[in-house]
């Protein structure tokens, strides 16, 4: 029965490829409780995405090692310096069909090419979805395969202002070849997904009581010879009540996040939407609903208008301006600083949250990766992607800036998979990780 609800959520999450399985909502699904507390080390991963490349000045530190500069963009992470690792030199080397924004997005976490298709971008050949699974889903499958690390959802895909259209520019998570996974951008829908069953269970419980009352009343009205039918019926209702109600333990460790009401899905609400999603993300981890999350801000070529930063142009348009246009550079720095603030909010929230039952900070058991589909906006390069890791490290030496040369994304994903305990030899296109996991 457990697989039922899991499958339903999976299919729902599969977004554009979701099969309609209306039949899988069932009372069994309501019985999903939080598993018993699992002592021992937990390993969690968050991949946070922001679009349109990174500014060179104001982001990249000049000094390698522990004494690296945290310039304007990285400033919000200052207090987490010891837990931060900035890497220069990670490159998306996947080629083939599709323009750089498309490949930048759909090949970023998959390390795999795009299928030929009908989506025309720029002057490249039209393309379709990625040919392989993304690293977050790969690690999720590994964790879900093991009883000790299995969680109700495995992964949750959060989005902030991701437009409601499905194409290679809007999808970075893939459950497999040709299976893009749509992020959930509406925090209320995400809440429903995470905690809806608890509410539904309460609803059903509150009703069963009344149903029994109604059956008893009705019994008096029917022929004596027919009462056995209603009596049997009443017994089944009682049994269901028992099955639903005999779980004495709380259904979650920490209370579900209270979301502010009626926040409209619009650019000007982006800061609030971002906070709501991050709060839910941390809340989900605290209740051990999942161990992996992705957090996708807008999309590749995203055109958010960040009026709260007093910027009226769309992000993507600005990213095309030449480096020497100082005004645009300044705006791009402010945009990326805002994104870094979101990262910092997420990491600090994780830091302040205790692992249930321990005094440990949740950040110590989490690795947060912030990246982008492009290295630099106006050149559309897929080389030197901004790569910021924050957290306990899982064996990576944190608290420094390091430069590597021409290392493929696949080799970094391989290193992260190993750090998470998933010892795979290859990920994505084999050619791109033949040298094994990157040594940092």
């Amino acid at each position, binding site marked *: 029965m457990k697989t039922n609800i899991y499958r339903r959520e999976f299919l729902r999450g599969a977004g554009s*490829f979701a099969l309609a399985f209306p*039949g899988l909502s069932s009372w069994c699904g309501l019985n999903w409780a939080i598993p018993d507390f699992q002592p021992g080390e937990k390993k969690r991963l968050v991949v946070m995405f922001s679009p349109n490349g990174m500014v060179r000045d104001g982001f990249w530190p000049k000094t390698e090692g522990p004494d690296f500069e945290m310039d304007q963009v990285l400033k919000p992470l200052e207090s987490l310096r010891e837990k931060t690792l900035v890497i220069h030199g990670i490159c998306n080397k996947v080629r083939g069909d599709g323009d750089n924004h498309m490949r930048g997005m759909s090949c970023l976490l998959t390390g795999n090419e795009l299928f030929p*298709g009908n989506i025309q971008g720029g002057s490249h050949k039209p393309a379709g979805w990625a040919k392989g699974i993304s690293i977050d889903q790969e690690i999720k499958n590994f964790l879900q395969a093991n009883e000790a690390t299995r969680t109700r959802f495995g992964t949750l895909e959060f989005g902030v202002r991701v437009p409601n259209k499905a194409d290679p520019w809007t999808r970075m998570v893939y459950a497999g070849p040709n299976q893009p996974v749509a992020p959930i951008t509406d925090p209320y829908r995400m809440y429903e997904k995470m905690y809806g069953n608890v509410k539904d269970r309460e*609803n059903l419980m509150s009703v069963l009581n009344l149903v029994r009352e*109604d059956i008893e009343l009705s019994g008096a009205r029917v022929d004596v010879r027919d009462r056995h039918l209603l009596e049997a019926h009443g017994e089944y209702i009682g049994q269901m009540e028992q099955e639903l109600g005999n779980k004495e333990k709380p259904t979650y460790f920490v209370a579900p996040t209270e979301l502010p009401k009626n926040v409209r899905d619009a650019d000007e609400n982006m800061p609030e939407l971002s906070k709501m999603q991050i709060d839910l993300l941390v809340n989900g981890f605290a209740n051990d609903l999942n161990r992996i999350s992705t957090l996708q801000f807008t999309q590749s070529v995203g055109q958010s208008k960040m009026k709260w930063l007093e910027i009226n142009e769309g992000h993507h348009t600005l990213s095309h301006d030449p480096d020497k246009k100082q005004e645009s550079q300044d705006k791009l720095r402010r945009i990326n600083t805002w994104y870094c603030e979101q990262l910092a909010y997420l990491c600090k929230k994780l830091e302040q949250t205790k692992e249930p039952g321990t005094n440990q900070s949740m950040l110590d058991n989490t690795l947060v990766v912030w990246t982008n589909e492009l290295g630099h906006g106006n050149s559309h390069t897929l080389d030197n992607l901004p790569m910021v890791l924050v957290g306990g490290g899982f064996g990576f030496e944190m608290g420094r800036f390091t430069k590597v040369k021409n290392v493929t994304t696949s080799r970094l994903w391989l290193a992260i998979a190993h750090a998470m305990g998933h010892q795979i030899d290859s990920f994505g296109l084999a050619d791109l990780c033949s040298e094994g996991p990157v040594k940092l």
Partner: protein
Amino acid sequence: MLQIQVRVAPLFLVISLLLSCPIHAQEKGAEIYRAQCAACHGNNAEGNPEHFSDPLRGDLALSELEDLIVKTMPDEHPELCIGNDAKLVAAFVYNQFYSPQAQRRLVDSRIELSRLTVRQFRESIVDLLGAFGDEVSVPDSRGLEANYFGSRNWTEKRRLASQTDKSIDFGEGVPHFDPTGKYESLKPDENPKKDANRMNQGFSVFWRGGLIPVETGHHEIIVESKNGFSLHINDQKNLLIDRRVRSDDVVEHRASIFLIGGRPVGLSLYLFSYPRPPAKIRLLWKRPSGIVEVIPKSSLIPVTPPEICICSAVFPADDASDGYERGISVSKQWDRATTDAAIETAEWVSERMWRLAGTRENDKDAAAKLRRFCYQFVDRAFATRLSEDERQFFVDRHLDQELSKKNQLKRIVLLTLKSPRFLYPAIQNRQRSEEIARQLALTIWDSLPDEKLSQLAAQGELVDPKIVERETQRMVRDWRSKQKVKMFFLSWLKSDRAADSAKDKSIFPDFDDQLVADLQTSLVLYLNDVVWTEPSDYRDLFLADYLYVNQRIGEFYGIPVSSEGFSKVRLPLDKRSGIVTHPLLLSGLAYHKESSPIHRGVFIARQLLGANLRQPPDDVKPLTEEFNLKMTTRERVEHQTKETACMSCHKLINPLGFSLENYDAVGRYRTHEKSKPIDVASVYKTQEGNEVEIRWGS
């Protein structure tokens, strides 16, 4: 044609004499029964688990019963009861217990409390919520509305054609896709640059309309196309298949959806090709019975029905031991299924609550309208107008809870659909007029009263027989009753047997799923003709001299067909007449290689003649052809059933089955079997003891 020739009627007199026989004859019969029969059969012929456990009842004529007693009773000492004794005790048993008339007299008749059957439950949910939307009308025309454009999107000025397509079966290319003809000569868009880049490069088709499923259950919808497309079925908001991004040369795309037989759902399919690869597409389904086919014209309509609420919860099968489904028992499984269905419906309602209530979330009277919707919802579910107390119990107390509107609604829906007042139609107290409406809807539609009937019920109008008659006429003409009548016939005729019976591929290579699906269509078209067109004469069920045939059926059964699709073909009377000789029934009532006179005989005896046959002994396996390769099927059956014990039933079954030996395992007409001419000579003995020669055809 079934020709009944009464040859002998001497027993008529005997029966009349016996029925009027003097009291002392009856007493004498009773005395013999008590002395010689009751020990094994029970004092009231109810049976005795240690000897003969079945109650004494059946379909033998009195003379046959007497004959049986003379030859076999009492057990092991048949010589003890012969002659006049046998005659007297036979008459006593026949009149007191055995005959169908006696049985009817003995049964204590009352209407048992029963719950909704699975079908009634599903139909009721659809209509309960359908009542808050647009009315569904099912036109006679078939096919889908199709709009073709020389652009990637719906662009009026680039329209190429509008037409009705009978099905979406364009594996070789869709119509109007002509890059060099009309397509190129279209006027460019006013913005030449945009046009050059985008508009001129695309081609699209929009198909719209409705889908009428044939069966109930999970259907797989299959779209075969390398082009971009998107498909909606029923759910107007979420796509069933989204393939707008073409990726890789995957041709087959599948999605599963639960559909209810006869309930039309909306369907829209948007196909585009961009920049300009050939546009090819096929729309198929895999039905719950396993049949895979291009969704046929008969299941497509050119108007779009409103969205419906379909419960896909898995219910245990209803008790059908009396030949039709009844809700006479409850089980844990059933309780869970109703809960799942209630949860599913609650979810559906809560997602659409503002539209259902005819308002919008932020309107100032939204809360009042939502409350009114809830009252109506419960009223309709229970087919009555709730009292103030009931409103409080089912609606108000939940709306006053500190909960989101969505959860309030969910609780109301859950409570209503779990309530015995909904699940057992007889439980709710109703005005007489309301009760009549409830009964009419249940009987004619397997569902709830519609808006019109509910209003008449509430006004107390249905106590007037004239109005009841008028409403009954109206309801019978509704498409829902056509579906119910169809379901009745298909289950009465056990039409699904053929779909379940695999035939030997080496002997009948062309008897495949597709042929079975076509035969089902053929049967349904024929039944429709008999029931719904003038003169609507039930005798045509047995006497009709035609068959609905399409190319595939025509080829298989050697019937010449000229037109495409199904047409009515008259056949020589000696070949087919009526339902019993329909190839679908004949193949269902047969083995995978050979015909089965026993199955056919039992079918006619039970389903058509209403005979009450006992279950056959468990350990008897039918003799196969290998038993004796020279024997015909008839000879084998006669050989195996010749014992007296077998003959008590088989003397009824065998002749009925033998009369159909002209039809082989797939219902094809034959004149010889194993080089011997087919022997169909057979005699049926009526209840009255008359002997009737059975002959199909002239």
